């Protein structure tokens, strides 16, 4: 943490970056995003196991990006998101410097995003046992049981879109739900409309989601919507040759390959 503070201060003093994005102490023992522009504020930075929010959600935000070059304190899920965002041309070496924090809480300053990519490729995305168990349970359900499960879980959703807002991959300037000519997804919270939104979101994240759980952590109603994206991740791995965020702009779901499996087409 001391190294992070020291480096943040140096970078700002030297004007190498305009803003450092990290974590500070928040309410009720939580941490929250901190944006430092003044080197004197670097001491407010904290880093520990409470820092679970995916800060990459901020690097595509207009107000943050427009400050100039950013440095970001990035845990493994944040780094994965950064690599995916870079492959989608949302960030690059000119506007982002990554101060990586390893799973062992060591700080590594990466020279460029290629180094970040190499680093994240050392770690396979693993789905934790609790969620894996839940996915297996859902898999074993009959279609009607599964339908009931999701209706029950998704009906309480009041469409605050905190899941979308907290997701680093949901950076679209205008989301599908905001198009009303035609209205693709119903605006009001309703049984089917909620289902449509969550399915659309999950499909849009297939082969892009870095499994950071930001959506689930953001949901005020604790809806287990991350189960959908976790399923997508496993399916991508099984059917499309695995998924690792990569700087190559060969996106799993939007790139056609002649040898793609087509056995799911009825």
């Amino acid at each position, binding site marked *: 943490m001391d190294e992070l503070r020291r480096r943040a201060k140096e970078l700002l003093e030297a004007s190498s970056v305009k803003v450092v994005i990290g974590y500070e102490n928040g309410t009720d023992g939580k941490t929250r995003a901190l944006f430092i522009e003044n080197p004197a504020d670097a001491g407010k930075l904290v880093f520990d196991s409470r820092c679970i929010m995916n800060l990459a959600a*901020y690097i595509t*935000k207009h107000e943050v990006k427009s400050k100039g070059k950013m440095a970001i304190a990035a845990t493994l899920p944040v780094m994965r998101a950064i690599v995916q965002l870079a492959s989608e041309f949302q960030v690059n070496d000119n506007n982002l410097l990554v101060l990586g924090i390893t799973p062992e809480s060591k700080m590594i300053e990466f020279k460029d995003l290629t180094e970040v990519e190499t680093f994240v490729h050392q770690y396979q995305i693993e789905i934790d046992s609790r969620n894996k168990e839940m996915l297996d349970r859902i898999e074993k359900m009959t279609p009607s049981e599964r339908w009931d499960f999701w209706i029950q879980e998704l009906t309480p959703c009041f469409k605050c879109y905190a899941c979308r*807002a907290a997701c680093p991959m949901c950076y679209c300037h205008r989301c599908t739900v*905001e198009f009303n000519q035609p209205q693709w997804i119903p605006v*009001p*919270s309703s049984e089917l409309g909620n289902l449509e939104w969550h399915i659309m979101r999950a499909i849009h994240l297939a082969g892009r989601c870095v499994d950071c759980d*930001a959506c689930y952590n953001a949901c005020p109603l604790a809806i287990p919507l991350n189960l959908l994206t976790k399923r997508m991740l496993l399916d991508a791995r099984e059917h499309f040759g695995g998924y690792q965020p990569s700087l190559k702009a060969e996106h799993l779901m939007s790139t056609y390959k002649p040898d793609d499996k087509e056995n799911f087409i009825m």
Partner: protein
Amino acid sequence: MNIDGRLVRKESLEKLFKILKANNRTIVGPSQKNGRISYKMVENYEGITSEYIQTTQSPKEVAFPRTEKILDYSKNADGMTVKGINADDIPDIVLWGVRPCDTMGMGELSAIFNWDYRDEIYNSRSSRVTVLGFSCGKSDEYCFCTSVGGNPGNIEGSDILFTQLGENGDYLAEIITEKGSQVVSLASDLFEKAENIVKGKFLADVPVRFEKEQVRQNLEKYFDSEQWVAQSLKCLGCGACAYVCPTCACFDIQDEAHGKSGSRVRCWDSCGFSLFTLHTSGHNPREVQSQRWRQRIMHKFSYMPDRLSVYGCTGCGRCSRACPADMNILDHLISIQEVTV
């Protein structure tokens, strides 16, 4: 006002619930799912959660549902048939287990729905609600009811207010309105005579953190402050704060069409969304999040007191608890009070 105070034994609450059900009352109470508490229709007393400082969602849905059908329409050769909603179809509801900040919030919500236009649907719904409030014996660092004119034992908005006399204790029931008396008349045995019970020492201690009038005055000069940008930088632009808020009343009108027929519905909307103020022309008067955050604070602490003589905040702290980015409204209000403009 001389309030009728009665003693209700701890075990009598369940009996009261059963008597209300036996009298065909629809009961909406705090109910838990995935570790979050919302107000839901409850059939059994076991379905009610009592362990909470504050619920995740506010009880405003009893009068202002997230999605509400306003009318049905169908087109045919002779023209258009429109069928509005029938207020008689709206059920009588007993709202169980509401904290005093929320009972006060229902007054603020009513002020909005009766400002320049009396909203018939809202008023039909709210007039059919009997409110059983429960005082707060505990609070947390998000609570600030005392800074906005409330308190943990505030009777405002309740028909009966229950105050638990110590942990695991019996309850003092203050019967405040005629609607409250009607509930008592159904189960008069359960409301025993009480001898001079003083509830004050059983209430949570919620310190006053700011002067709301000072905040209002500062806001008059604060519109162009740079602080809005600094405050809102971490705001992600979702609608969680508005949707858990007991007084946020903004809504959208949508037509759900199915061929030649359909329904017109009113559904919640939030000033935190970029789409909220987007004009057909493409111009958006609140183009960035700082302008939307400013609107949220201004509406509650400047425009509402100016126009409706009530503040739009009850200090329930829900928006701060629900915020995925930990935008703590209390911190922001304190900083607005302290600013020298």
